[in-house]
């Protein structure tokens, strides 16, 4: 039982449980909290995989900013999640959804778990793997174009969301 296995079991279980809780939860705010916990567990798994910079980026951007956006929208629009009790269109829609959903999950997991479970050695990593300097140098020397395009994408998203959420005057 190495440290990495212990971390993987605890954080992997937390990630799996909270992911299921997001899908199954009736209360929208609870679902947001579960997703934040899921993102946090994934960030700890990143730390176990020597990805320091990405782990902290995940907490700062994903769990710390995007999910707060979700939380604001839920709180402002006062979504209670009561829409799930609306009428079903197909007969016996809910049990069918549960059964088929479980089948999908089982298929996907069984399809991948057999592939790489042979403990073939991973390649050795050097000291600064995953640190901010490494990510930065790889980003700016070699992936400069995607970096700039991403910034334009963010600009487009900012303009788009401001236009979408703007109150229009009644004619």
């Amino acid at each position: 039982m190495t440290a990495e296995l212990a971390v993987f079991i605890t954080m992997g279980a937390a990630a799996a449980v909270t992911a299921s809780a997001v899908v199954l939860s009736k209360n929208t705010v609870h679902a947001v909290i579960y997703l934040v916990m899921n993102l946090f567990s994934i960030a700890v798994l990143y730390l176990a995989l020597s990805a320091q910079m990405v782990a902290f980026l995940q907490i700062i951007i994903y769990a710390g900013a995007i999910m707060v956006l979700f939380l604001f929208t839920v709180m402002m629009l006062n979504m209670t999640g009561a829409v799930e009790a609306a009428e079903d269109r197909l007969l016996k829609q809910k049990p069918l959804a549960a059964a088929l959903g479980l089948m999908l999950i089982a298929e996907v997991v069984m399809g991948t778990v057999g592939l790489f479970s042979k403990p073939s050695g991973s390649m050795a990593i050097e000291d600064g793997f995953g640190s901010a300097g490494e990510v930065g140098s790889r980003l700016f020397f070699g992936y400069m174009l995607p970096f700039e395009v991403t910034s334009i994408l963010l600009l487009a998203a900012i303009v788009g969301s401001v236009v979408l959420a703007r109150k229009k005057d009644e004619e």
Partner: protein
Amino acid sequence: MLPVGYYIALSSFMFAVGAVGVIVRRNPIIMLMCIELMLNAGNLALIAFSRWNASMDGHVFVFVVITAAAAEAAVGLGIIVAVFRQKSGDIDMDSLSEMKG
């Protein structure tokens, strides 16, 4: 490092759960959150393989994916707010099946 299959199994589980969530749930916010779950599952797989191959390219990819997820979440939430202004009460995604607002 643990066998990479462990991380991939977890990643595929999260992805499948997210996919089922998008299909089954009707609340638009929860659907968006399940999409974020799927993106996260992809990120986990990328980081696991990047560690296995000792290559930093996966980290850069994840950086861009997180940024794209942020942009998509912002625009998606803007759409939800705009739709919410039209209809009162909760939004039922199943009933929003036409483009005409």
